[in-house]
């Protein structure tokens, strides 16, 4: 694995080669995969050398470093790995280059993934792999996929009541962080609600949204299928609860599939995934929050053309298949989901995954997303710990988000944004 370069300028070597720095992980299977693909790329492009700059996998640490480097106009790393909600922020700040002049094949990717990476009418990053929120269920306890959220509750209560049944019905990520929003968006979509509508107006306090939040609260305090502990949990705590057999259902990301299939898992071979179902009420639809990583070109890079070559290579179908096989991450290209090789690579039935990606919903695509999310996180969490009633919490959130949009002058920009309407079913 190539060592990291010092920050500074890249000069062409004597051999007249271009040097690129790629921001990526060196950990475990991901690290091995990245190294392999970079090497393959270098074989195909003898005049380009790629070096790996190790950056944290943890999103907020990586964000911090990126902000620092880009604020200092550092050209390394040339290729940045963006979380799905960062693209508009980085685009607006002028930190990543628009990809339009390279004519990327946008129609070959899922529309939601392209929307998430488009700001002010231009594409700024290519989706590398997709994460989608999934409902995990114990197939030995609930053989049939529940069709609505209410069925989930019924199934959960039934299994909890059986002797030696699991202690919990469902576990999710309810701590006061971004993960809470990703879960909320799914309940929101299930009841037909949205955070912002197509013209950028704040609609998170409409009745549908209140119903969604109330539903989450009911899971905690009414039907009690979710333990109060989830309000402090991130992905891993929920995963372990499910893995240890303590819960019938779990909402989590695809990574948990691989993590739970090894010998220490008590549920290996006994679980299946599907998208979070609709509520069954009119307007509602099955929703999976879109996550994942995108590849973008550092605006200060000295070799943007070469950088795009690398991005194009890494997002090509073959490489996405390799990734699916090595680390079980889902491709973002539509065509691959009709490809048998993908099913073999992922080792789980493709149907559920395809439905999940097709119902993938991005979070609001705006540079002020982190601030917006923080406001919403606080109010949602307050409602969930019963420091506030759902309607009041959402009203408060709506008011503050509105004020934020005003203060930052985003209103005009966001209404110009060509957002793809939420996937209608």
């Amino acid at each position, binding site marked *: 694995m190539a060592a990291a370069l010092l*920050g500074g300028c890249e000069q062409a070597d004597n051999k007249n080669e271009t040097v690129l720095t790629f921001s990526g992980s060196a950990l475990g299977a991901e690290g091995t995969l990245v190294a392999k693909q970079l090497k393959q790329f270098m074989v195909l492009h003898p005049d380009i050398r790629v070096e790996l*700059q190790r950056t944290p996998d*943890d999103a907020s640490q990586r964000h911090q470093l990126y902000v*620092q480097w880009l604020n200092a106009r550092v050209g390394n790393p040339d290729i940045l790995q963006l979380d799905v909600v960062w693209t508009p922020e980085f685009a607006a700040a002028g930190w990543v280059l628009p990809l339009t002049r390279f004519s990327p094949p946008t129609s070959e990717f899922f529309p939601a993934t392209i929307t998430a990476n488009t700001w002010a009418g231009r594409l700024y990053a290519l989706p590398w792999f997709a994460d989608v929120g999934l409902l995990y269920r114990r197939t030995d306890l609930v053989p049939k996929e529940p069709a609505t959220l209410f069925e989930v509750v019924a199934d959960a209560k039934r299994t909890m009541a059986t002797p030696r049944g699991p202690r919990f019905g469902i576990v999710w990520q309810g701590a006061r962080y971004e993960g809470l929003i990703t879960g909320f968006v799914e309940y929101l979509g299930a009841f037909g609600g949205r955070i912002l509508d197509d013209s950028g107006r704040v609609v998170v306090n409409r009745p549908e949204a209140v119903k969604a939040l109330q539903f989450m609260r009911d899971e905690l305090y009414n039907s009690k299928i979710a333990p109060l502990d989830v309000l402090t949990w991130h992905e*891993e705590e929920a995963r372990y609860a499910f893995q*240890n057999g303590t819960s019938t259902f779990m909402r989590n990301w695809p990574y948990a599939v691989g993590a739970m299939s090894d010998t*220490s898992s008590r549920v290996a071979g006994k679980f299946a995934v599907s998208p979070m179902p609709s509520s069954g009420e009119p307007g509602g639809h099955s929703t999976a929050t879109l996550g994942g990583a995108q590849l973008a070109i550092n605006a200060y890079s000295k070799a943007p053309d070469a950088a795009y070559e690398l991005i194009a290579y890494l997002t090509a179908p073959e490489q996405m298949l390799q990734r699916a096989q090595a680390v079980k991450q889902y491709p973002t290209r539509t065509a691959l989901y009709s490809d048998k090789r993908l099913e073999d690579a992922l080792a789980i039935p493709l149907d559920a995954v395809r439905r999940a990606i097709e119902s993938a919903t991005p979070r609001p695509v705006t540079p002020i997303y982190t601030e917006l999310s923080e406001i919403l996180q606080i109010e949602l969490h307050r409602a969930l710990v019963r420091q506030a009633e759902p309607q009041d919490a959402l009203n408060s959130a709506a008011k503050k988000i509105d004020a934020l949009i005003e203060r930052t002058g985003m209103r005009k920009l966001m209404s110009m944004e060509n957002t793809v309407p939420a996937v209608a079913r």
Partner: protein
Amino acid sequence: MSRTVRAVRVPSRKTAGVHWGQWVFGAALVLLMLFTLFPFYWAIVASLTPDAALFRDPSLWPQHIIGDHYRALFVDRDFITPIRNSLIVAGTTTIFCLCVGTLAAYALARLEFKGKAAIMAFILAVTMFPQISIVSPLYLLLRSLHLIDTYPGLIMPYMTFAMPLTVWVLTGSIRQIPKDLEEAAHVDGASRRQSFTKILLPLAVPSLATTGILTFIYCWNEFLFALSFTLGPERQTVPVAIALFRGQYQVPWGEILAAAVVATTPVAALVLFFQRRIVQGLTAGAVKG
């Protein structure tokens, strides 16, 4: 000589009370030791347990000991390099800080000149800004000096932010050391430098050892600067290496705790070695009027 006890009516006590006090003292000390060491004990237990078991049933005793986490530390992750980096950075910073700080403390404690209070205030004031806000401009500065991802790039900021403690503690300590001996030496013709090195320094050793340890530990644990001013494994320190264990969602508890246990060992060794120096009473025979 100004430190005799003023004659005051003091309450007297029966001697039996002393033993009772000692029992209380002993019990309190034991409780505190338990409180202090329990989490560390727990960290050791957890680092020997598989991650999945950690979330199942917590127990005080290790149920199922595995060495995987420790092996992963050194085989999969190369934990030696960050330890080396931390030792170099912390050690160098400590030595420089002590040298530079002692000189300053001597001046502030023993010499008379205007502006001493202002100097002490200034040295302290630089540490009153939250690190978060200093990081960005400091990054810009270090970058312009080409010090990013280098040892000096970490040592210099650490010195800056560890200096106040060094200077303040040493100044206070030196002030409390009576001047008698040094002045007697001056009368006998010794130069300032001689009285400093031969008389004052030896008496200041406990404070030097204390601030040395505190500085070392500060550098050892510092995270934000280390994360921001280093780029790769060749220069990253232990806290950064540990933070990089985290995957996007995964938190490898066992390895993190194993790393913590391993990282604490050099420090504990250092302290054990120096702990006698920390406590050397003035009654080592030197100072009587």
